[in-house]
């Protein structure tokens, strides 16, 4: 079974995100960059499924050569090979989905696994758009994935409980937090990763129209919260919650 897993380079979730002085974007100098945590869960899931069913795990990223670091991390976890679609321009989710559709056409995976969202733009769109462009079924926000030769049965996180859907293969799965706990790369894994194949493709060679359907016009920081007050004891707290905040 062949798995294609997307890997996005994003700001560390522990990093303090600040706007540049000219508000053109966020400050990235000195900010640690990581593999999107939901993508890391995706890589882990593909590896576990491969351990059960055999096959190949291919990871793909779209971005500058900086993203090689995150692809190597995925290879160090155990992925077999990597593809980097080189691009330094702005993309929206629709553009990302169109690019991935081209990679899917080249690679013919049985299952595409993506993070449910990237923790930078938080859009939560690309996988679903990709599924529709391909005419495939989708199982978003996966909690448990069970594969057989023809289908994927996925328990997924829905509001108020777990919903189970069944998709014909090939299909798209997006990961939620509880799906698994990603492994740490071992030292031999890291050494091996350096020699695993990593193909670089120029975006222009794919012939995809990535004209923006959604443009980010401005960034701002959310209104700062009013400074709160310290209370000396529980009695004062309860009294203020009752009379001032009317919260209890």
């Amino acid at each position, binding site marked *: 079974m062949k798995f294609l897993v997307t890997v996005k380079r994003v700001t560390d*979730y*522990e990093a*303090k*995100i600040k*706007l540049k002085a000219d508000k053109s974007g966020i400050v990235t100098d000195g900010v640690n960059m990581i593999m999107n945590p939901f993508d890391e869960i995706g890589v882990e899931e593909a590896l576990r499924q491969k351990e059960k069913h055999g096959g190949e795990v291919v990871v793909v990223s779209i971005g500058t050569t900086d993203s090689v670091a995150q692809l190597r991390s995925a290879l160090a976890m155990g992925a077999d090979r990597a593809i980097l679609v080189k691009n330094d321009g702005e993309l929206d*989710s*629709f553009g990302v*989905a169109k690019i991935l559709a081209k990679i899917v056409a080249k690679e013919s995976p049985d299952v595409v696994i993506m993070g449910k969202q990237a*923790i*930078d*733009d*938080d*859009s939560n*769109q690309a996988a*679903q*758009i990709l*599924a*529709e*462009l391909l005419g*495939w*079924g*989708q199982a*978003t*926000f996966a909690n448990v994935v069970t594969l057989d030769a023809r289908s994927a*049965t996925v*328990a997924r*996180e*829905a*509001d108020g*409980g*777990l919903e*189970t*859907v*069944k*998709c014909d293969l090939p*299909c798209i799965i997006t990961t939620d*937090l*509880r799906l698994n706990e990603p492994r740490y790369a071992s030292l031999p894994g890291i050494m091996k990763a350096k020699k695993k194949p990593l193909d670089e493709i120029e975006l222009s060679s794919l012939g995809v129209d990535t004209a*923006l*359907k*959604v*443009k*980010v*016009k*401005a*960034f*701002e*920081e*959310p209104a700062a*919260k*009013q400074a*709160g*007050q*310290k*209370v000396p004891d*529980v009695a004062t*707290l309860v009294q*203020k*919650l009752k009379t001032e905040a009317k*919260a209890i």
Partner: protein
Amino acid sequence: MALHLIVAEHTGGKLVKATLAAVAAAQKVGGDIHALVIGQGVAAVAAELAPYAKTVHTAEHAGVKDRAAQPHAKVIADAAKSLGATHIWAASTGAGKDILPRVAARLDAGMASDISAVVSDNTFKRPMWAGNIIGTVEITTATKVITVRPTEFAPPAAGAAGNVTSMACDPGTSKMQFVSFDAVVSDRPALSDARVIVSGGRGVKGPEGFKTVIEPLADALGAAIGASRAVCDAGWVPNDWQVGQTGKVVAPELYVAVGISGAIQHVAGMKGSKCIVAINKEPEAPIFQVADYGLVADLFKAAPELTAAIKAAK
């Protein structure tokens, strides 16, 4: 003029109230409001929505009896085309997030996710980086698809009841199907729509602390229980209790953070709360910067005291 199509979400024969947040957002753009209810036997849901729309369209078919993204997206896109909708809206609930991007793909439309404000008919504000940054985004396509963060839009007042009519419904061939739904049975409210949330962090010291300190306080307040990423990662509590960027984003009336230091990723998930209380023994803990009321104290003393005081006040 704008023609809005609101995709109704319903469960157990009832309208999911978050749908009304999408109506409220569409009203800010102005224009005619239509709503679409998909399923089988949805007359009651359509009637619930009628006071908020000029026309409520029902699309009924055995193939869309249960919700599944692929067939539902087709039915929504077909309806949008036949009505000439300029804007297709839904609440950014689990279902809205699952289905609406597929609708955008079918309509070759741009989509803005989880918006927090309407700027104009094509421009919206939305939280990015877990709400640390607010982006203003413009959808450049003629048809626009938008999901709305329910906590940011108050439900509109009911108006005169609009028409309810049925429309053609062809779910097409689907490569996916709904199998089953297992509802979480709990006496506690769900995190995502709780009025009060009590959250515990590393300061609680272990799963035992959640049982002896957090749970009684939550019981006294009728609250849902949340947690920081650190304690979920440590396995003290289930992962779906996690509040934060990689967990759930919540905005209750009252959020009580107990033994939580206030890491950026946690604060991102709860700073929209109306009233925030923090109990932490560390006076310099960053949680105090976002708390409306901060109590510097040993939580093992203060939290039970608070529990008792709230019980006594009832």
